[in-house]
């Protein structure tokens, strides 16, 4: 159970690994020297400076530390060193004094900061001296007194904390003083190597020498620790930053950089120059670390520390605004003032958020807002968030509330660039400390007792012996003295280096297999050429290293592999004609090390479109081709990226044009409409399960102009942890750039392979079900042949017992995966929430974004299996029942004529309405559009859930240069046609598509400036955003690029105008309007209110 080892993995020893059987303990990893070596090398991070560089990656920084997944990279080492040392050194004992000082800092409110400064100067000098080693060294000046001081163990907060860190250090250092003398000699290095944990002790001290500078930076601290921290520190104390390890580095590359990476949308279909596109750019910019500093300061001055501010709706516990209050008096429809009804108020600037405040879980900010997390014990809400931030004690209470209890887990989510990277902990050969009963991993909420000799598992309540070399005395506060130095004891999210026990085989290499449709249609629409050019450009973005393998195949009615071996003069094509019973050429022929085949690969991608130029084969053997690609990489596992353009019509898993059949047979079509949203048969599903078993992840890029039965095709990516990209109707002109960017993001985003995930809960709660893109072969775990930062898994929970009031309920998500560089890691995310038996608490702590994401996912899940009307009804009822419960049990008596909404959920009706009008729940959409919507929702992350149904609309005809600190994106406009004027141009985006609506009487001057056309009639159907030499155009490009960055998506741009189908499309997104698919917002509120009134009176 605990074993995160992938089950069915094909390797020989897999049998030893019985699924139900516990874990690793007895599992004898077939020793793989390499992996061991890997572990060691990780350990070595602490070693002398040279180490980091030894990694494959030349520049340690190159690798964006932000990406956890990438952590393994050589780059990481450099960054992680400071953190990695989990163990408190034995030496720790000696410093009794420390704990006190240490702990306080944490708890200290920001203001405390000022204090620190003083601390700093103190002892540093000598004590630290000894800590030469840690990664820090590199940057540090000369040997002895390594600067690294701060970074060190726990000061996780690094950048984020801003001022805090420096201050803190001081205090901590002081303890060392005592021991100081002794330690120095140890000169750590050797010690570390052998055993991660112990060594670290020393780490703490490092800061010594540096202090001076640091302190200077921090001095100002006093007042503005927060802001200051950032701004100040970064600029002038680069050195100090570097000490911090990743933090420093991280920050820079981050988003903030936009300036450097403007999307300068590629003029025409042309592929973007690398780096031009948002998220992906990060990795690219590592080199520019230096510049970064400015950003943090300027762009996102953290406004608030912790949760102070009022703005957050969630926060306000008491406020129970009635509809009337907020705006809409209910009684008479007419009375409702549309301008007063609840609407989302986007927060424009990032706020700081601490996950744990005063030992209490801090309710997370809205997922859609911009926030910077400081992990103080609970995990960042990016990785895991719960629908309610307090857990109801009983199942009854939950039922009464009408809300659901579920977690949204996004284990590899992208952190905010200013956040501290996840620390990597290496426990050496013994592996991470775990509860021997439930196999839960050590986390900050495990309680140590008996002088630290035992610990109580916060998940199952079992009392365990502390492993001898993990023992540490407790301080007066009952916490381990080293708690703050060990990331696993003070961070909600950490990453462990997996030991042999977690591997059934050597970690797999990164294998990419590209599969391109070359059937007649694909060729003629330019899809093949677009795919080839995208791949060709992306090749350079694939992870470097000898481990990376690549293969290419094309297919029409047969499958064509390419032998890319260097020995050949030119690539040669190997045709597999049998598409019923597929086989592959020798793997060694067709899957080749990237470093060995670059030239052939480039040549090949160049000739593919011309080679098939005159292809008259209309058939496409998608299923067979995927199967063949699978066979080709079966032995290692890997990613298959398929570019498909037509309905798979032949061979294994071929499909029929069901949609058309449904249309001709109307009676059956009507009755069973949703059947078309289900896979046509089981063939693809069976195949997909086999793929998953062998760790093959399939992504499908559908570049089509016709029906391709996505409902059936998507089964494959869905089961293997992949995703479907949909370009309909495909246009070589406008979609090529997006195709390239999507592909690029696909391979460069943080991701992992051969992953296994499990969520554990405290006693009393258990996991009911997982939803997302994965394969489930055992009841407890989900297998993810591929997992990346965009994938979210919904975990529904249920009570199996009553929880004691006042206790805490913990959730722990463990993801065992292999990084693209072949390191095996365990990403551990722990969330501990208070339990409550008060209904009002539940409403107060309800997390609207999360709840709505769950709503959305559940609705999407039901669409293929139930008639649409039923689903819509369920959605409405869910909304009503929540509000009813609130009205009934929590609202102080008010006139029944008022609709009363809980503050936290006041937008629920709006979103519900929007959901009902969304593509998936409309009956008028194309089958494929609905399928893709369902598919998209299945892995959709929380921050993107709301925009999907309630898009963002902004006006772009009046863009004006903004002040530096203002958000790039103009203020949003409610989604109502009242706000759309005929002389305006509006941009509406939902994270995937971006519609630009051009009013009929727009100033032609503006049109000329923005699009190079003089009247709305000249609007091209295939639109490519270009940057013209005028401020307006530049501004528009900036806005679009900013949106792309925020959404991690390139967006399909489309111009719309009135009186055109495109205009109708645009207006269909204006969910507050009355439309064939649903009532207007006001009407809906009235409807909801009426329902509630009816139910109130009937009960």
């Amino acid at each position, binding site marked *: 159970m605990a074993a995160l080892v992938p089950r069915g993995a094909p390797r020989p020893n897999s049998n030893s690994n019985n699924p139900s059987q516990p874990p690793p303990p007895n599992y004898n990893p077939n020793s793989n020297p390499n992996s061991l070596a890997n572990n060691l090398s990780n350990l070595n991070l602490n070693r002398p400076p040279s180490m980091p560089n030894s990694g494959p990656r030349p520049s340690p920084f190159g690798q964006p530390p932000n990406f956890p997944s990438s952590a393994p990279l050589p780059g990481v080492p450099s960054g992680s060193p400071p953190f990695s040392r989990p163990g408190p050194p034995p030496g720790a004992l000696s410093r009794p004094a420390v704990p006190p000082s240490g702990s306080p800092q944490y708890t200290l409110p920001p203001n405390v900061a000022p204090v620190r400064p003083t601390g700093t100067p103190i002892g540093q000098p000598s004590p630290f001296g000894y800590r030469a080693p840690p990664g820090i060294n590199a940057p540090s000046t000369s040997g002895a007194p390594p600067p690294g001081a701060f970074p060190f163990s726990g000061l996780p907060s690094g950048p984020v904390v801003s001022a805090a860190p420096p201050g803190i250090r001081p205090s901590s250092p002081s303890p060392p003083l005592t021991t100081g003398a002794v330690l120095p000699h140890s000169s750590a290095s050797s010690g570390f190597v052998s055993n991660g944990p112990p060594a670290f002790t020393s780490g703490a001290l490092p800061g010594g020498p540096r202090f001076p500078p640091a302190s200077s930076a921090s001095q100002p601290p006093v007042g503005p620790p927060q802001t200051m921290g950032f701004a100040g520190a970064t600029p002038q104390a680069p050195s100090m930053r570097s000490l911090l390890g990743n933090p420093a580095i991280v920050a820079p590359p981050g988003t903030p950089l936009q300036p450097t990476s403007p999307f300068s949308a590629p003029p025409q279909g042309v592929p973007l120059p690398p780096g031009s596109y948002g998220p992906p750019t990060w990795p690219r910019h590592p080199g520019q670390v230096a510049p970064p500093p400015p950003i943090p300061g300027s762009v996102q001055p953290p406004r608030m520390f912790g949760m102070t501010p009022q703005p957050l709706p969630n926060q306000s516990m008491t406020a129970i605004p009635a509809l009337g209050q907020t705006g809409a008096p209910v009684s008479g429809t007419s009375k409702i003032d549309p301008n007063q009804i609840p609407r989302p108020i986007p927060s424009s600037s990032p706020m700081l958020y601490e996950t744990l405040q005063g030992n209490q879980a801090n309710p997370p900010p809205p997922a859609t807002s911009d926030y910077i997390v400081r992990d103080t014990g609970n995990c960042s809400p990016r990785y895991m968030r719960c629908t309610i931030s307090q857990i109801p004690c009983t199942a009854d209470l939950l039922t009464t509330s009408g809300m659901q209890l579920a977690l949204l887990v996004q284990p590899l989510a992208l952190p905010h660039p200013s956040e501290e990277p996840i620390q990597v902990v290496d426990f050496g050969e013994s592996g991470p400390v775990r509860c021997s009963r439930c196999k839960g991993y050590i986390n900050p909420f495990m309680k140590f007792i008996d002088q630290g000799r035992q610990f109580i598992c916060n998940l199952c309540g079992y009392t365990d012996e502390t492993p001898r070399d993990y023992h540490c005395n407790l301080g007066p506060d009952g916490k381990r003295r080293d708690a703050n130095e060990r990331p696993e004891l003070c961070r909600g999210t950490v990453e462990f280096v997996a030991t042999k026990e977690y591997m059934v085989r050597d970690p797999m290499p990164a294998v990419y297999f590209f599969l391109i449709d070359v059937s007649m249609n694909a060729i003629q629409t330019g899809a093949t050429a677009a795919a080839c050019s995208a791949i060709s450009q992306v090749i350079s973005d694939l992870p470097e290293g000898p481990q990376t393998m690549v293969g290419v195949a094309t297919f029409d009615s*047969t499958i*064509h*592999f390419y032998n890319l071996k260097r*020995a*050949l*003069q*030119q*690539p*040669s*094509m*190997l*045709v*597999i*004609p*049998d598409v019923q*019973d597929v*086989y592959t*050429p*020798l793997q*060694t022929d067709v899957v080749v090390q990237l470093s060995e085949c670059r030239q052939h690969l480039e040549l*090949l991608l160049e*000739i593919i479109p*011309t*080679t098939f130029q005159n292809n008259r084969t209309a058939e496409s053997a998608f299923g067979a081709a995927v199967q063949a690609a699978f066979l080709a990489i079966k032995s290692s596992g890997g990613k298959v990226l398929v570019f498909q353009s037509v309905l798979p019509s032949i061979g294994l898993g071929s499909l029929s044009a069901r949609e058309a059949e449904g249309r001709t047979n109307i009676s059956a079509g009507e009755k069973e409409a949703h059947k078309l949203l289900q896979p046509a048969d089981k063939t693809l599903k069976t195949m997909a399960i086999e793929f998953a078993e062998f760790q093959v992840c399939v992504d499908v890029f559908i570049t089509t102009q016709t029906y391709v039965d996505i409902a059936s095709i998507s089964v494959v990516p869905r089961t293997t942890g992949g995703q479907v990209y949909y370009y309909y109707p495909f246009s070589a002109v406008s979609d090529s750039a997006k195709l390239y960017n999507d592909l690029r993001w696909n391979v460069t985003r943080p991701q992992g392979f051969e992953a296994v995930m499990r969520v554990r809960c405290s006693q009393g709660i258990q996991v009911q079900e997982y939803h997302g893109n994965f394969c489930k072969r055992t009841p407890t775990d989900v297998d993810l042949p591929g997992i990346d930062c965009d994938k979210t898994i919904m975990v529904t929970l249920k009570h199996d017992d009553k929880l004691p009031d006042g206790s805490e309920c913990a959730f722990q998500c463990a993801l065992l995966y292999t990084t693209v560089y072949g390191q095996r890691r365990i990403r551990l995310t722990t969330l501990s929430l208070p339990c409550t038996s008060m209904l009002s608490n539940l409403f107060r702590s309800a997390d609207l974004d999360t709840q709505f994401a769950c709503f959305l996912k559940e609705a999407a899940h039901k669409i293929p299996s139930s008639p649409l009307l039923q689903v819509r009804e369920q959605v409405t009822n869910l909304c009503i029942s929540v509000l009813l419960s609130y009205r009934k049990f929590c609202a102080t008596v008010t006139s029944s004529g008022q609709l009363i909404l809980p503050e936290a959920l006041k937008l629920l009706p709006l979103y519900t309405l929007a959901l009902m009008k969304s593509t998936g729940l409309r009956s008028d959409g194309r089958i494929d559009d609905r399928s893709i919507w369902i598919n998209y929702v299945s892995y959709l992350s929380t921050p993107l859930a709301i925009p999907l149904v309630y898009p963002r609309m902004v006006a772009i005809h009046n863009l004006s240069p903004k002040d530096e600190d203002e958000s790039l994106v103009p203020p949003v406009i409610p989604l109502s046609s009242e706000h759309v004027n005929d002389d305006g141009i509006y941009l509406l985006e939902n994270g995937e598509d971006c519609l630009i609506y051009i009013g009929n009487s727009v100033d032609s001057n503006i049109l000329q400036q923005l699009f190079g056309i003089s009247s709305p009639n000249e609007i091209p159907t295939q639109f490519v955003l270009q940057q013209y030499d005028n401020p307006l155009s530049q501004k528009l490009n900036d806005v679009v690029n900013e949106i792309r960055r925020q959404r991690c998506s390139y967006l399909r741009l489309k111009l719309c105008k009135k009186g055109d189908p495109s205009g109708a499309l645009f207006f269909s997104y204006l969910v507050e309007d009355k439309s064939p698919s649903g009532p207007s917002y006001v009407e809906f509120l009235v409807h909801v209110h009426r329902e509630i009134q009816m139910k109130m009176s009937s009960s």
Partner: protein
Amino acid sequence: MDFIELEAIEGLRWSWNSWPASKPECSALIVPLSVMCTPLMQSSELPILTYDPLLCSQCGAVLNPYARVDYTSRIWYCPFCYAKNPFPRSYSGIGETNLPAELFPTYSTVEYAPGRKIPSPRANPGGPSLNSKHNWANGLSSTSLASMASFSSSSLSSLGGDLRGLGPAFVFVVDACTAEEELRALKNELLLVVEQLPENALVGLITFDSMVRVHDLGFSECLRVVLLHGDRELSSEQTQQFLGVTHIKQQYLGKAPVIQKQGFLLPVSECEFNITTTIEEIHSSVQAMLGHRPQRCTGTAILAALGLLEGCLINTGSRIMVFTSGPATRGPGIVVDTDFRNAIRNHRDLVNGHAPYYSKSSSFYQRVSQRLSDASIVLDVFALSLDQVGAAELKGPVESSGGFMMLGESFESSQFRKCVRHIFNRDEEGNLKMYFDATIEIVTTKDVKICGALGPCVSLQRKNNLVSKNEVGEGGTYMWKLGTLTSKTCFAFFFQVSDEQKVQPGSAFSIQFITRYRYGNMGIRKRVTTAARRWVGSHSPEIAAGFDQEAAASVMARLAINRAEKCQARDVIRWLDDGLVSFASKFGDYVQEDPSSFRLSSNFSLYPQFMYYLRRSQFIDVFNSTPDETAFFRLMLNREGVVGSLIMIQPTLLEYSFDGPPIPVLLDVRSISPDVILLFDSYFHVVIHYGSKIAQWKKLGYDKDPNHENLRKLLEAPELDAEQLVAGRIPAPKIIKCDQHGSQARFLLAKLNPSVTHNSTYTNGSDIIFTDDLSLQVFIDHLQGLAVQS
């Protein structure tokens, strides 16, 4: 009359030149009534007629010198069925003084090459021969007819529209598991072949290892290969579908057949560059897993080639040439699995049934044979390997298609090069010397029944009243199919006297062989040989006088190996012995119970000796041979003419000495002498054996000393002769030079009659052979003893 002279005219050798008139008497002859026929024997006097033959309307026989001609009424009487046939108008000028060549008494063999001037297959379909409803035209195999019809209409158009002069098709099937150096030699040879092929010849290339790669030669952007799975036994239709060479049947909706352009089989002129690059790009894919043989799917590769040729409707003659360097280890036709712990089957395994794949693979290849024959495709196998490659399994299709088999050790050997070059020899007009798609038809006088044939042919199962129920070899027909044949290919035909009619002793009977084949330029030719012999009465001395012991021995040898395929060697030997004893007692001259009185007349005298050497030859005694070698030897014997067969059975031994010109000596260990050079020829090996003295002189370099000119000449003579022997044979025999007592001398010693062994009392200083085999003397003694018993 000398049988050999007669052979030079007729191309026939008769075991008996005079046949007893009654059936029981015939069976008492022991050696069956048979004819060794070399249909395309080269002859300087062969008249070539540029018109179509005149056929008997009743039996289909071709007009020949034995026909009675009534010049006045312009009628000829068929000598076989006695039917009356009028001469057509073209023969209007016929008269006693104006005979067409086929009626010349001296021309027992003529060749018809109608329409020679337009050497295109197209010339034929409209020709008179097909229009006439005569038997011989019907005699074409139906597939050939069909193919010709569809060829002109469809397949030609698919091949680039060049209707004129499409040559034969060659599909090279190359084993990519061959080591790189070996492969290089092979590639060079193939390149040479391609370079020298006539422009209109079609070529295809298939390589295989664990999978089959069919190379697309019409694809210019890059190398394109269709990969077929090595384990699957694909049907013809599947193969064609996978290769995209399917042709939709014409009746389908009455539309013109749509043939996709294919690039797997193209005229050399169109794809020379591509095939050259493709051949150059063949790389060895040996991935030796420790302890495992490379994965080869030879059977599947052959199937693919076959499917391709079938799909392209090339029925004008085509060859699948397999170049392999090891046994098939997967797929249909598997010989042994990859694990080296499992040795390749040997004869003992075959006998004991310990060869798990043998029978399955053999039956697979049997099916292949059928398909090859149906499509007139020839299968050639070049097995260059130190180990067996499964020739035993492959023998079936190679033999029945008339294909070529070569077992050697290395592609780098000159033997291999010679073979390949020989095959692709061209005549003066630049046509390949290959004869494809042949059939042989026999017409006889009605008292003679046709039993069957032994040789590289397949029975077409055409029956008429001349076909005997008693089948020998490929029987039950009067017409046989041959994938290909050479001017040396020889068939043994077996006959029987009809048991119905009583024939008049002294009267004549005749047999006509009609061989229809496609000449190197793809034109169809027909060679007609008519021979007549006499019936004789019982106990007539003419019977004995007409006995051709050499022909008889080679016929018996074919029967023996035919039998050996099904029975154990022991039984075959017993059968031979029994026959010989009966034969001796019938034709010997002796006093009952007195062995010493036994005599045989001169034209029987060598026969027992032939039998002696036959029973200890590698054909029967498989000890020391692998199944592959045995298969190869038998295959060669089964197509060799009388002279060649005899050399195989009883090798020749020439002695070169200072005493005079070379003389043939006894194939006996006593022929070895220190001061002579022996030239030994067993057909498969040519050994030059230097006596110990000569060897020493040679070592001392006397031959280079001008004073010992004669030694040099002596040394030269056998070498020149050996070269000559080797020149005519394909595959070229291995020339082995050895000194007396040298290890290589074993090739010689193994064949010599062990008249002196380690058991002999008197050795007279001769060499001895360590063996317990019985010597010729002992054998003859026993034979005499048994023959004279009553």
